[in-house]
């Protein structure tokens, strides 16, 4: 089937994407292998020696092994808030798609508003403080859930509408209570969209920088993006460390991606595009 034209096109596409997408990453990786002097040149050259381990060690041990704390915190925040997001958003999407009441309009409005309105930071801090949640991982998790709910709900709702209602009813006849219907029937069937949610939200939350900056002060609460920011001026003359840091914190999203790579498109088909 492959004509000569399509081979040439393929090679051209590979070359173009290599230049545009791969080279910046190679640059990051090469920088992470260099020593301080060579990295200061900021050029695309082969490392003079193998300094990756030194750089990694340097980055990880900076500021009292802050990177370790940060990885633990970020992972915890990401895993818990994505789990909560999935359950809460699917619950809302489920009832919203299934039950038509006069509240639906209001709820849809609130969801859209959540997508559009930029969060009011200082009143939020004041409120978290009142709830004794300011500067705690719990507070941060709830913030991430609140800010990302609308998008997750939208993804779910469209898909739930395509699940036949008869399934719910069959389950009820089988003796299921609403929670059984939700957790045993609906949630498993939402898997494709859940994958999309996991990928998009976990990457977003793991990479979030602004919110932890405000709501999660304190060294013991550092997150990985904050380490990058904190180290930025400390490493301002040490590009090798800066890029080692960037490389290091890109690994977890990469793992998520490799895990779900094949299923992402399916989830998008199911959720986002049906609208």
């Amino acid at each position, binding site marked *: *089937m*492959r004509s000569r034209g399509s081979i040439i*096109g393929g090679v051209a*596409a*590979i070359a173009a*994407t290599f230049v545009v*997408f791969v080279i910046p990453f190679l*640059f*990051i990786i090469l920088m992470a292998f260099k020593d301080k002097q060579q990295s200061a*040149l*900021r*050029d*695309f050259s082969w490392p003079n020696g193998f300094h990756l381990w030194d750089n990694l060690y340097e980055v990880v041990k900076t500021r009292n092994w802050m990177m370790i704390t940060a990885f633990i915190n970020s992972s915890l925040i990401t895993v818990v808030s994505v789990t909560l997001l999935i359950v809460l958003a699917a*619950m809302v999407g*489920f*009832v919203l798609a299934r*039950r038509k009441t006069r509240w639906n309009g209001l*709820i849809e409005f*609130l969801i859209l508003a*959540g997508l*559009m*309105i*930029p969060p*009011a930071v*200082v*009143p*939020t801090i*004041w*409120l*978290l403080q009142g*709830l004794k949640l300011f500067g705690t991982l719990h507070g941060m998790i*709830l913030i991430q*859930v*609140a800010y990302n*709910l609308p998008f997750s709900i939208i993804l779910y709702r469209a898909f739930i509408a395509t699940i036949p209602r008869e399934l719910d*009813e069959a389950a009820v006849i089988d003796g299921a209570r*609403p929670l059984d219907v939700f957790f045993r029937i609906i949630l498993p069937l939402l898997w494709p969209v859940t994958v999309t949610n996991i990928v998009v939200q976990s*990457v977003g939350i*793991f*990479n979030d*920088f*602004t919110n932890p900056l405000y709501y999660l002060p304190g060294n013991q609460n550092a997150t990985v993006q904050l380490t*990058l*920011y904190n180290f*930025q001026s400390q490493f301002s003359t040490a590009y090798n460390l800066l890029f080692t840091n*960037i490389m290091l914190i*890109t690994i977890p*999203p*990469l793992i*998520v*991606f490799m895990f779900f790579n094949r299923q*992402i*498109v*399916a989830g*998008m*088909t199911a959720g*986002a*595009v*049906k*609208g």
Partner: protein
Amino acid sequence: MTAAAAPALKMQRRSLYPGWFYLPAAVVYSVLFLAPTFASLYFSLTRWTLFDATFIGFDNFAQFFREPFLIQGLVNTVIYAVVTSGLKVVIGMALAVMLTSQIMARGYLRSVIFFPVLVSTIGVGMTFTVLMHPTQGMINQALALFGIAGPGWLVDPKLALFSVALVDVWKGVGLATVIYIAGLVAIPKDYYEAARIDGATRLQNFIYVTLPLSRPATATVITLSFIGGLRTFDLIWAMTKGGPGFASDTVASVIYKQYQAGFYGLSTAGNVVLFILIAVLVVPLTMFLNRKQGHE
């Protein structure tokens, strides 16, 4: 829900879709998002030092619109949103068409294009700030090999906003492509076969089948990236901080600067302005996109 009549009670008791399913989400959302948002409406009418707030009516809004660069910031915001969402639509669609065709190394291409989505905005911003350095940056050094004097990507006031927008597209086009791939895969083969029987060329195939039938995907890409573009802050902040001077300021960065300067009331008023801007642009846009969809 207030009706005390027996049937209403029965309905509540037995509903398959209980209202309390909304409850956990509603509590989190109301307390941590809605309540502060409503509080901010009040604070936007005050001069607020965090320690105390003095009610000053609409002065903040008047002040905000007197900000010398707000108007340019507004224009920049719209330009940024239009450029990024436009490019994401065009490039995302093109890449998706390419990746759903019989091209070699599809898995590689798909992964590579999606990969930037995974990197944090701060990391991307820092990397490209280095790459776009006017003299030592890799981009201009590469151009120099071909005898081209590269521009000052981030330091030329005419170019800075577009340079950041390009990086935004670089980072975000993978998501747009995936959405488009999903949209294209969902188009039934019958249409292409029917078109082929009608003697359509590849180009006609694209114009008359792919383009109209991928409209839901387009709507999703436009809505997401347009709202994202209007609210964009991280990347601009990581790369130019609105500079040089005020050349790449957007509403979000102006708000942030007011916030940084401790003008909390003013900044909160800016938040309200941004919200109104988004509502004014996005609500008609989504209505337009959805109405078109309805016609299909």
